């Protein structure tokens, strides 16, 4: 390496995916856009992803962070599945955050299960960006 090479700031890579069968991806898109505007590289995987597909994408894309969006109510089945598959495939170090319609009691249990942050309706984009950044930096 040339001595003159200056260490560049490398962009955070984040996967945004929607597990479950609801087709409401506006929230996921708004978050993707906000993370993009915060200088991150957002791999947008889109709607109706299975936990298997999400984990595979996270590992192939070597992301620093995974964001899941869900409005269907199937979060208690799908989120833990994503976490356990990530662990199985050697991606347990990748933090996962989530957003959507998730009751407080479920949110508490999901956090206990390893979802690092959960954002409900009304969360500011600023808070999401700040949290995403700190989660990604801590995992690096």
């Amino acid at each position: 390496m040339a001595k003159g090479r200056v260490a560049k700031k490398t962009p955070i890579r984040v996967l945004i995916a929607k597990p479950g069968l609801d087709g409401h991806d506006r929230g996921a898109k708004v978050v993707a856009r906000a993370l993009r505007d915060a200088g991150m590289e957002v791999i947008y995987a889109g709607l109706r992803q299975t936990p298997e597909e999400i984990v595979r994408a996270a590992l192939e894309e070597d992301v620093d962070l995974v964001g899941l969006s869900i409005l269907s109510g199937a979060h208690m089945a799908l989120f833990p599945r994503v976490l356990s598959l990530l662990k199985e495939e050697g991606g347990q170090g990748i933090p996962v955050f989530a957003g959507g319609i998730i009751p407080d009691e479920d949110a508490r249990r999901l956090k206990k299960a390893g979802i690092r942050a959960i954002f409900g309706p009304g969360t500011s984009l600023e808070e999401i960006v700040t949290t995403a950044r700190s989660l990604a930096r801590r995992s690096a």
Partner: protein
Amino acid sequence: MTGFSSRLPAAARAIVDGDRRALARTITAVENGDPSADRVVRSLYARSGRAPVVGLTGPLGVGKSSLVNALVGRLRSLGQTVGVIGVDPSSPFTGGSVLGDRIRLERRADDTGVFFRSMASRGAAGGVAAATREVSRLLDAAGFDVILVETVGSGQVDVAIRDIASTSIVVVVPHLGDEVQTLKAGLFEIADIFCVNKVDLPGAELAKRDLAELVTLGGRPSGWTPPIVGTSTVEPTGIDELWNDVIAHEKFLDSSEERTRGERKRLSTEIVGLARDHVGRELTHRLERDPSLRHLLDEVVARRIDPRTAADRLVRGGRRAR
């Protein structure tokens, strides 16, 4: 040097052995210019050059991602493994990016015959990222039979895929413009294959005719005449034909001097580019850090010497800068 495989660095060994996590991590390191990737990239070069590298380029919205997905399907049905790189633009303002090429990829969660990687252009012009070429080599060394590279939605002069791909497919759709557009310099010059996608839309025949006219106006110096294929991914049409044309072009390369000639040209561009980057970094470092040369910059700012003269002195190491 393939006989020295035991001397490969651990990450390189893992990539050759099919460790997808090692591959993914090394790709990140290459993208980031991380020194840890340096030895891996160097050591795997000898194992690349085997897989055809097929580039898909064309304006935004013509259906490149959908075609990539269709080609992946075709290749998998032929029993071939595929490495895919999908490049999307980085924001010139924030550096951020939304990489959406993966969204078209059909559900293949348990198919290890496909590896898909999204890549941001990170400021590189020309339709691909600086790391795209080296990453396509990593996929090649990892054993994928075919490498597909999808460029950023291209403008008229985004022809960098030419420096990476052995076969370049230029994708257009009906009503992109009249036949004079096809005469213009740039994108249309690099096509080994023309693909008129969304061929189910009105105007497709006219688009094909305009391209056919372009092709007959004068052949390539190589003697290859780009075929024109109509495709659709809605009701899959022309995908087999498109792939057969890729094979035909690859065979043409092998049966003529063109494979070697093209490789030499691409590698020469790469070597000079790498050397230029290297020297450029050294010079930037010198100008900004070397006290005697910082003075040179001051002189130019003060209009006491001109930039050309300063550049001469910088290259000579600033011996006469004072």
